[in-house]
C-alpha cells in the first residue's frame, strides 16, 4: 500500500514538474509580439488624432478610447497566442503578469480622473508613461528580457516627459505607446514565434 502510494506520488511529482516548466517556458514566449505591434499602430493613430483636438477634454477622450482599444487588442492577441501554444490564460505566469501589471494601471486611471477634475493635464502624459512602464517592468519580470527592458524605456521616457513643455505631449505619447510597442512588438514576434 505504501509502495503504491509512493509510485503514485512520484509520477504526480513528475507531471507537476513538467507542467511548471512548460508554464515558465510559455511565460517567455506567450507575450503577443504582433499584437503589441498592432497596439503600437493604434497609438500612432491616436497621437495623430489627439493632435487635431481643440480641447483638453477632447484630447483626453481620444487617449482614453485608445487605452481601452489597446487593452482589448492586447487581450485578444494574448488569447490567440495562448491558444496556439495550448496554454491557459489562467496559468500561473499569466496570473503573475496580471498581478504585476494591473495595480499601476489602476493607479494611473485614478490619478487621471483626479487630474481631469481640476483641469490639470500637464503631467498626465509623463505619469501615464511612468506608471505603464512600472506595470510592464514588474509584470514582465519573469518574461523575455525585452519586456522589462521595454518597461524601463517607458519609465525613462515618462520621467523625461514630466520636464518637457506641454506642446510635446502627443509626440512623446506617440513615441512611447506607438514607437516602443511597435519596435519591441516586432522584436518579440521575430525572436519568440509571433
Amino acid at each position, binding site marked *: *500500500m*505504501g*509502495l*503504491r*502510494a*509512493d*509510485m*503514485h*506520488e*512520484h*509520477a*504526480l511529482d*513528475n*507531471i507537476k*514538474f*513538467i507542467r511548471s*516548466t*512548460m*508554464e*515558465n*517556458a*510559455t511565460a*517567455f*514566449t506567450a507575450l503577443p509580439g504582433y499584437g503589441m505591434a498592432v497596439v503600437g499602430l493604434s497609438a500612432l493613430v491616436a497621437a495623430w488624432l489627439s493632435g487635431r483636438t481643440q480641447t483638453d477634454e477632447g484630447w483626453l477622450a481620444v487617449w482614453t478610447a485608445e487605452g481601452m482599444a489597446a487593452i482589448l487588442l492586447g487581450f485578444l492577441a494574448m488569447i490567440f497566442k495562448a491558444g496556439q*501554444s495550448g*496554454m491557459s490564460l489562467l496559468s500561473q505566469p499569466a496570473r503573475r503578469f496580471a498581478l504585476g501589471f494591473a495595480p499601476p494601471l489602476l493607479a494611473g486611471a485614478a490619478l487621471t480622473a483626479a487630474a481631469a477634475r481640476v483641469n490639470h493635464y500637464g503631467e498626465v502624459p509623463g505619469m501615464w508613461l511612468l506608471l505603464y512602464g512600472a506595470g510592464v517592468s514588474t509584470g514582465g519580470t519573469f518574461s*523575455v528580457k525585452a519586456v522589462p527592458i521595454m518597461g524601463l524605456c517607458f519609465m525613462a521616457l515618462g520621467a523625461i516627459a514630466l520636464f518637457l513643455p506641454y506642446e510635446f505631449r502627443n509626440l512623446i505619447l506617440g513615441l512611447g505607446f506607438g514607437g516602443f510597442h511597435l519596435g519591441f512588438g516586432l522584436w518579440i514576434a521575430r525572436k*519568440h*514565434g509571433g
Partner: protein
Amino acid sequence: MAVRGNAVRMIEPAMNLDQLIHERVRLGIVSALAASKSLTFGELKEILELTDGNLSIHARKLEDAGYVSVRKYFEGRRPQTAYELTAVGRKAFEKYVNHMEALIRAMKPKEK
C-alpha cells in the same frame, strides 16, 4: 525514503520509461521546448536555472538522440544557439507524459 527509492526503481522498468527523458534536467529541457517553438541556450539556462556546463551536456545527449535540433547563428556579432524539439522528440515526450498519467491513474492510493 527507502520505500520511495524502491518505488522509483520499480516504476522505470515497469513502465518501460524512456531513460533519456526520465532524467530531471533532460525532462526539463524537453518540457520547455514542448511549450515553446524555439528557445536559445540563454533562455533555457534561465528557465531551468542550470549552469552552462550542465545544460550543454544534457542538451548534447538529446541532440545525439535526435530529440532536439540545434541552430547556430549570429545576432549582431554574438553567436547564438537555438534549440527546437524534433518530431521524434515531441513523440517521445508525449509518450512519457502518457506513461506518467497512466501510472497516476493505476497507482492511485485506495481510500480507506
